[in-house]
């Protein structure tokens, strides 16, 4: 079980501000993960996360309708309804859990949901490679 595995290092994927203040993460492959996971796989994960955050922050008719409706009810509607952003955050949490279970945990890695780090970084914990000792 994971309790015995030691943490070797932590890698932090920083935010990508090239398109503004929207929540996007850099897809550059960190060198510490070189012998742990495919570059392709990693980029796919980060791109999927970026797409989901873009969906949450999209300025479209849905966000405008939600905003206007909320304003008319003096924002009391959010006491009984979840905001669009919160719904997408739940989706993101589920996706990260899924990715951890299927792809990252078997390789001794753990993705931390960026919301737990203030949406600043995607923290990847690298555990010691148990397969080498067997």
């Amino acid at each position, binding site marked *: 079980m994971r309790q015995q595995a030691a943490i070797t290092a*932590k890698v*932090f994927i920083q*935010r990508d*501000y*090239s*398109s*503004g*203040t929207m929540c996007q993460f850099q897809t550059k492959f960190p060198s510490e993960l070189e012998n742990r996971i495919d570059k392709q796989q990693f980029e796919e994960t980060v791109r999927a996360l970026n797409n989901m955050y873009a969906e*949450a*922050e*999209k*300025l479209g008719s849905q*966000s*405008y309708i*939600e*905003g*206007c409706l*909320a*304003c008319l009810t*003096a*924002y*009391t509607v*959010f006491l009984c309804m979840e*905001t*669009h*952003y*919160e719904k997408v*955050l739940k989706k993101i949490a589920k996706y990260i859990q899924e990715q951890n279970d299927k792809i990252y945990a078997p390789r001794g890695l753990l993705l931390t949901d960026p*919301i*737990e*780090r*203030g*949406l*600043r*970084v995607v*923290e990847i914990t690298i555990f010691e490679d148990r397969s080498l000792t067997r």
Partner: protein
Amino acid sequence: MSAVMITRKVRKWEKLPGKNTFCCDGRVMMARQKGVFYLTLFLITGTCALFFAFECPYLAVHLCPAIPVFAVLLFLFVMAMLLRTSFSDPGVLPRALPEEAANGNVPAGQRPPPRIRNVQINNQIVKLKYCYTCKIFRPPRASHCSICDNCVDRFDHHCPWVGNCVGKRNYRYFYLFTLSLSLLTIYIFTFDIVHVVMRSMNGGFLNTLKETPGTYPLKLSLTVLEVLVCFFTLWSVVGLTGFHTYLISLNQTTNEDIKGSWSGKNRGQNPYSHKNIIKNCCEVLCGPTYPSVLDRRGLLQEDTLISSSNPVPQTTVSAHKHTHALFLIVVSSFRHTDS
């Protein structure tokens, strides 16, 4: 050696750094100094109470019963917006954990890493500064509030009247508060004048004085008081609303405007503006409602170790997220082993 371990579940807000005060078990978040906020509440509720008590009965009967109804709705909206602005998290960025902050630390003897990062946003170079208190590179448009001792995303300003910072998460509520307060002030001011005019028209000053010799001077002086409060509030609040309307149409913050980040030919153009007034307004006022990244009501496990050899309790806190509320104090004794 024997020791006593006291395990207690605490809410994360109790351990948050920064100079905020929390109420209702972490649901409410405000700045430390709340005196001016109480003054705001007093002025608004006081003036409205006088209006409802003294003007509304007369106006409802002699003019239209919808007048007090609309005033009540407007008053409730103003209060809702004020409380929403004051009690919500403005968009505080949590401080970096030691491992994240250590990314920038180098062993002694080497040159310290650069404390300014340049990013290009929409063909404009923006400098991201490093915050020494929060140990993070501030995202674009974020700024550190010295009063609350937090970095706030899309920092506008710290408003003592609402007793909180105004940032990404509560800017629209702040704007709607100033807008609705302007409308309420104009409304009360107008109907106060109408009331005085109508009273003097209906019978002349002398007749009215004969009818109600005792109460009329009191009512008149209260009306005058309301008119004065509204008059002075009008200039400041309407001016503020106008200023923020201008900022919203350009998608700028008060902080950027004061620093002159995007004004003048040498500084460049605002990279966050959509170059379209309607789109800018829509983004600020009807954009997505950002969630708070400070998990104020999450649970932390606090272990306080009190050993017989060391009477000073040693506290360690481990993050352990739960979704339901529990406060336990569990006392157990065990043999202290090296861990």
